[in-house]
């Protein structure tokens, strides 16, 4: 019990959970992972009790007190465990990071989802165009830096890299390759994957693709 009593309620396919795992690994914080077992059926009692508003993973339990929403959780961890900070030091830098965090949260996963949920060729094309426009903004803000955070891997990098586990699925169903459009962004993904915190926390994209195929079958798209 005490400062080290951390539990993460998670689910293997959730890119939002992967983000939190990357953050925990970057800061070398020990925790216990509690995976939701039943994907399609009911949610666990613990999850429903810990996040009654959204009933979604990830939820961090710190000494049994719940913190929900991945960006929120990572900001919390950064404050409680200030070693190896994830956010920039200055207020303006932090405001830029929070802006891009908000942008990534609003746009990326829904836009990707629209690609594999599309019902016909026209819808796929429109969804792909929208997704690539979002990537354009991200590529622009990354620029020639190694990471969104500058020289060091930080908050914005973590938020986006978790979502990137789903990118091969978007590429497959959208019939495109990110590196053909935005090579800098693709290089950033590869650079980030070289970090142990990332390679150990992200689910294998093949597993995600199979998960998406299963969902598409459920929705009558396959």
């Amino acid at each position, binding site marked *: 019990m005490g400062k080290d009593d951390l539990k993460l309620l998670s689910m293997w396919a959730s890119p939002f959970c992967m983000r939190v795992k990357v953050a925990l690994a970057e800061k070398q914080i020990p925790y216990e992972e509690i995976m939701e077992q039943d994907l399609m059926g009911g949610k666990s009692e613990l999850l429903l009790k810990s996040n*009654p*508003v959204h009933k979604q993973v990830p939820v961090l339990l*710190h000494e049994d*007190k719940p*913190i*929900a*929403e991945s960006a*929120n*959780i990572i*900001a*919390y961890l950064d*404050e*409680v465990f200030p070693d190896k900070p994830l956010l920039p030091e200055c*207020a*303006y830098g*932090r*405001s830029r990071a*929070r*802006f891009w965090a*908000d*942008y990534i949260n609003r746009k990326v996963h829904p836009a990707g989802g629209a690609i594999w949920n599309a019902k016909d060729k026209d819808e796929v094309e429109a969804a792909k165009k929208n997704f690539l426009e979002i990537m354009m*903004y991200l590529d622009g803000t990354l620029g020639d830096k190694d990471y969104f955070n500058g020289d060091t891997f930080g908050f914005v990098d973590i938020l986006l890299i978790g979502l990137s586990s789903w990118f091969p699925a978007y590429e497959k169903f959208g019939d495109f390759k990110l590196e053909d459009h935005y090579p800098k962004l693709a290089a950033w993904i590869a650079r980030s994957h070289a970090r142990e915190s990332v390679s150990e926390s992200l689910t294998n994209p093949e597993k995600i693709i199979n998960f998406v195929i299963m969902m598409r079958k459920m929705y009558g798209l396959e």
Partner: protein
Amino acid sequence: MTQDKVKLFGVWQSPFVLRVKCALKLKGVEYEYVEDDLLNKSSMLLQYNLVYKKVPVLVHNGKPIVESLVILEYIDEVWKNHSLLPEDPLEKARSRFWAKFVDDKFVPVISKMLRVTPAHKENVAKDAREILKTLESCLNPDVQFSEGNKLTYMDIAIVWVGYYAQILEKILDVKLLDDDNSPLLNKWFKDVFDHEVIRECLPPFDKLVAHYTNFHEQHMTVDD
């Protein structure tokens, strides 16, 4: 000592601009306000907010900050008097969670209400009341706003919901702030409205009613 130069681009009716005005006023920050014409967005606004092209935009010594909740955190970090966010990281996380909840849930429902036909207004009002009921659960009965009259991040982030709910009640003749549904929340709103800073920053009620009545008439979708 160099003078801090602060500029706020906004529109008078925006609840997100309201948030920023409240924070600046509470902390006694002097700023220049620029009312933006939404239809003919000024090139200066576009220069500062290329991604969303929306207000509010705070410009501090030439550097732009966008997104109202991001702006609130920035203001709190730069001007440290009357701090808005709690010290305790857990309480801070809670505040951020509820501010985001309000934006994620209430904004779409307000948008729906402003386009609703008489036949569907009760259904949408019911959805809104459910969200308000959930929002009520964010209130910590041990820490009421009225204690010490201290305005917090959560008060500033959420106060617009109560005000705009009243406006919608008037325009659509529906009940949103129902004491059978969310009595604690309703009381909380009343307390926050009474704070001097909030009172001075809230746009005039009648002006908002007229503006949104007009909007509703123009955007109401036809009944099938």
